[in-house]
């Protein structure tokens, strides 16, 4: 309902530009003191381990542990040195107000502190095309229980597990689950199980009067359910490429 504009509207109004939120992954370089000779030696050594990984990676200098570093000249020098090593410095983070002003003079932006990704994960990846995106933690299955009738126009979505509805699903309502769908009531609306491609997902309901049934993308509408379809206490499952509806009695 609230999803953006229709294709027709977009075509009808050609805008000179569009603004979209965008998030990037950047490398944070934590300084623990002044960037002296020892620092650059250590940096060289580190860069040589994975020469391609940091090449042209967007980089932000973290100044949380580098209190003294608050002159624009020093920051400019550091930036030039880093850029010479093909590190694309664009800003600082966790700086004091004085450091933020210095960064501004040095042509860098000052960012609020972000959240660091665990070090091992960053260093393990050696490919140039993947700039340190943390692998999402494996999600635990989460079942969802609804104890009220699902009304026309409502959508209930269990994106990581089974969906249990204690009540009826009205015509014009939608129940969607990554896993199975259990309905302790009459199903008059649409039920879509296994939406992430789980072909073993099933739909169970007390009374079947559905507008649409789908498992892993294979669907049947009320029109082609047929008169001999069982209507009470049924389960719906995939047998090969066929959506089967079977009485549980």
């Amino acid at each position, binding site marked *: 309902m609230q999803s953006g504009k229709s294709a027709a509207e977009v075509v009808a109004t050609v805008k000179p530009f569009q603004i979209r939120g965008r998030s990037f992954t950047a490398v944070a370089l934590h300084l623990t003191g002044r960037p002296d000779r020892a620092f650059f030696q250590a940096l060289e050594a580190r860069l040589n381990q994975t020469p391609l990984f940091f090449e042209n990676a967007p980089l932000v200098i973290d100044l949380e542990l580098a209190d003294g570093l608050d002159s624009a000249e020093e920051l400019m020098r550091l930036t030039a040195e880093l850029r010479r090593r093909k590190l694309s410095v664009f800003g600082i983070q966790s700086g004091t107000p004085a450091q933020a002003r210095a960064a501004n003079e040095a042509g860098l932006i000052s960012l609020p502190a972000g959240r660091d990704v665990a070090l091992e994960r960053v260093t393990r990846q050696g490919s140039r095309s993947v700039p340190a995106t943390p692998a999402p933690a494996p999600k635990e299955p989460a079942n969802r229980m609804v104890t*009220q009738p699902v009304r026309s126009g409502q959508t209930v979505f269990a994106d990581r597990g089974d969906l249990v509805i204690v*009540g009826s699903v009205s015509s014009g*309502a939608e129940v969607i689950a990554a896993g199975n769908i259990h309905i302790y009531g009459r199903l008059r609306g649409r039920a879509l199980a296994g939406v992430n491609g789980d072909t073993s997902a099933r739909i169970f309901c007390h009374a079947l009067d559905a507008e649409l049934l789908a498992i892993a993308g294979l669907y049947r509408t009320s029109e082609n359910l047929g008169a001999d379809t069982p209507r009470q206490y049924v389960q719906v499952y995939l047998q090969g490429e066929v959506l089967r509806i079977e009485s549980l009695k």
Partner: protein
Amino acid sequence: MSKVIVVTSGKGGVGKTTSSAAIGAGLAMRGHKTVVIDFDVGLRNLDMIMGCERRVVFDFINVIQGDAKLKQALIKDRRLENLFILPTSQTRDKDALTKEGVKAVLDELREEFDYIVCDSPAGIERGAHLAMYYADEAVVVTNPEVSSVRDSDRVLGLLNSKTALAEKGDGSAVKAQLLLTRFDQNRSANGEMMSVDDVLEILAIPLLGIIPESTSVLKASNEGTPVSLDEKSPAGKAYLDAVGRLVGEQIEMRANPGEQRRGFFQRLLGRTA
């Protein structure tokens, strides 16, 4: 404790304004100080149905925008001393309603009235949303016909999610009850209309009342009299029963309360609905 009751349906033409007027009058007849508010900005009807259209000077929108005081806009009914009407504007549209404005008016009314009946416009857009937003209870007006039932179902979903009570998130909800209007016992028995049980099975809310299809409703509307003032008509009686249930009385449900001189068998069989 004052109560805000929204009369709503989703679908148009099912009898929201007629029901608002009848319920408002019924509550006032029982001695409750009652005000009926017209939320249908731009399509001013309530004042006509309640027979006070020639006394409208200031309206709900004037009050919201601070151009008039609430006391100036409230119209006192000539027949019932406890009944007041807050008419709406015919020249403005629903955009003139604001959440803050509606809240301020309702809060002021809550101090003085026992019952505040909000007559919702059709649809589920701004006007209908704001009419239900601050409600404590809802009367969902439905005709025994599939599209009306589906729209009511949609409105029940909104009552459960898009109201101040629901947004509190502590499990409180607007108490919704069904008012089945334009019901014809014979046509329902023939299968031309949905039965009471069919409607209740889909909507799954308590039944507040069944208003029989009656010529007295149209006549009362044209005369500008709330139909519940016509105690002889079947519809008027049914509304008075519904109002009784609304304030918490136990009143037996009759599919056709006005029917006189019924035979023994009819009396026996007529009670099942």
